[in-house]
């Protein structure tokens, strides 16, 4: 039984289009700013990174933690969000 947030369900329910990086589950304002500083200003760019890492959740969470300072929960949430989005739309 997954305990996904409303944010997660909103993201996974439709194509991400041009949504900002803060639309990703687990990514709030502070983490979003850090990611934008590194050029990851849209959710699709973060998706690009997720795909580059071959959709490996472990790798992606490690990268996200290093890149944005996210903790395990936030990074895991984001990874799960992207994984489910890929399952639905990719």
């Amino acid at each position: 039984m997954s305990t996904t947030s409303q944010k997660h369900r909103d993201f996974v329910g439709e194509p991400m289009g041009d949504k900002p990086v803060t639309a990703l589950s687990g990514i709030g304002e502070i983490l979003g700013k850090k990611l934008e500083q590194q050029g990851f200003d849209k959710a699709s760019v973060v998706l690009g990174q997720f795909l580059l890492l071959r959709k490996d959740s472990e790798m992606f969470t490690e990268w996200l933690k290093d890149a944005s300072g996210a903790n395990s929960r936030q990074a895991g949430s984001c990874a799960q969000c992207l994984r489910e989005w890929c399952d639905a739309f990719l």
Partner: protein
Amino acid sequence: MSSLSSKSAQEISALLDEYGIKHGPVVDSTRSLYEKKLKEAMSKGKKAKQSPDKTYYREEEEEVTYVYRTPVRSDGAGDRQSYSSYSRPKPEYRGRDYAEEPYMYDTPSTYSRNSTLKSTPMKSGQDTATAPQSSRLIPLWVQFVFFLAVAVFLYIVFSSMETNESLKGLE
């Protein structure tokens, strides 16, 4: 061991494969992550590279090269001398380890040992020397002592049963 950041993307990719790390393309955004992964893998002395056959051969080769190196020692660099003298106790230690540890442990220990030859000899050698010991939760001698204690206890019980003549009466 040259620094990872000076290696080409293909070399990084090849190293990741050698350490059995699943990975995607090595590009700008993924490179630093993969370098970090490689550093972790190398410092842990994870199983890398060669097959067991080559490693076994390498073990013998190393003993030979030690003898070979001693005459060279005088004109060689200081760190080479320390390297050859440092590697000497290792084959003996490892040799005993192979005899004692079960077959299953053979391959990981050979891999970890071999990786020390390629990577930095000093630090990682110490890590692999302690690594096989930490693979046992209970030290080997404790297991032997416990086994002997159980055997002695059973013997005492058995011998005491033999002297009990009253059992014959039950037949």
